[in-house]
């Protein structure tokens, strides 16, 4: 099978179970959003794929081959992590040269173009880059390596609105020209909602949602009205949550409701991905 396949992955940090038998697949040439609250296990999952950490049990296959300690499988994956793995005193331009030597598919011309577009000073030492430019440096390298599977862990951390905009556009441009699989872990859900085709939500080390973004958005809805009207309508339905303000109530559901079939006095609205995420991952 083409793609990344993860089966029953378990990882402990001491007594804490960071991944509880996680099974998920990332198919070829799709853009995924990997969403979860702080400490949910996103980075642990991504780090396991690239072999930066070793899971306690479970399987990871890349295009059908075991990923752990397998150079051929690993050469297809590139991860933009939260941290730099380059020597402290290294300059940006030297890191570009160095990456080029390790990744045969690396596109130097494209990398330099992106660096100029983002205003990244290539003569700076990596350790002297600001948080934002540190992220920019890593995401530019990731977009330039031309690996089949690109994993982005918090790609827009510290980026201003203009640079975030440039990142999403550059990613989509590159993807349109030559598709690849991208897994984007981010907290800026609203911004990425339209970019991702599939959404994977992880909560406390377990995958709780894994479906087409549009499919999830179609099902999420809110119903508002007087508490009495809402209570009688939602009886027996599975709720994501309820908000009330005095006698006014809003119920959130994951169900397709026919708007022409609603009792009068109840108004239906849709939920965006961020709102759905909040209700799905609330304690």
């Amino acid at each position, binding site marked *: 099978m083409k793609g990344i396949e993860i089966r029953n992955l378990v990882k402990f940090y001491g007594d804490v179970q960071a991944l509880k038998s996680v099974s998920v697949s990332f198919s070829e040439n799709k853009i995924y959003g990997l969403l979860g609250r702080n400490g949910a296990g996103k980075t642990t999952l991504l780090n396991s794929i690239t072999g930066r950490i070793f899971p306690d049990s479970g399987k990871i296959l890349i295009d059908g081959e075991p990923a752990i300690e397998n150079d051929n499988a690993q050469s297809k994956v590139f991860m933009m992590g939260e941290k730099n793995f380059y020597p402290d005193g290294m300059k940006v331009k030297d890191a570009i040269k160095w990456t080029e030597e390790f990744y045969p598919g690396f596109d130097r011309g494209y990398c330099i173009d992106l660096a100029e577009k983002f205003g990244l000073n290539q003569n700076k030492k990596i350790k002297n880059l600001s948080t934002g430019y540190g992220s920019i440096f890593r995401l530019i390298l990731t977009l330039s390596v031309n690996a089949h599977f690109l994993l982005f862990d918090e790609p827009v951390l510290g980026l201003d609105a203009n640079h975030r905009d440039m990142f999403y556009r550059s990613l989509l441009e590159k993807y349109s020209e030559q598709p690849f699989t991208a897994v984007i872990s981010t907290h800026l859900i609203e911004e990425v909602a339209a*970019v991702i*085709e599939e959404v994977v939500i992880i909560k406390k080390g377990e995958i709780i949602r894994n479906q087409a973004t*549009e499919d999830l958005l179609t099902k999420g809805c809110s119903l508002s009205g007087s508490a009495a009207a809402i209570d009688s309508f939602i009886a027996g339905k599975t709720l994501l949550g309820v908000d009330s303000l005095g006698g006014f109530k809003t119920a959130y559901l994951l169900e397709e409701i026919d708007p022409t079939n609603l009792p009068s006095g109840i108004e239906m*609205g849709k939920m965006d991905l961020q709102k759905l995420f909040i209700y799905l991952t609330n304690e």
Partner: protein
Amino acid sequence: MDFQEEKPIFVQIAEYVEDGILSGAYPEDSQIPSTTEISVWHKINPATALKGINILVDEGVIYKKRGLGMFVNIGAAESIRSKRRRQFYENYINKVIIEAKKLGLSSEEVTSMIERGYGR
């Protein structure tokens, strides 16, 4: 363009291109932007852009020229106009009436407001 939550994005993309055809930005027999251009411009997944474009292909509003791209069909503006006229009651008038009833406005009062708007 800001997307609304109420409608799927691919539907909004189709409407956005329709608006371009209605306004004359994309005249008949001219080329519309490519799926890639639409995707990058609106920061949406190319699959979503393609789904929106395919609605218009299915409705015969645009057609594909092999190797060249998508072009506006002859009569596209007129067919969009008549489709939107058919949907006018459902999309606009219906909402006005629901709100008017909530406020206790009579049909005469609403009609006179519409006439006032037209007279401006």
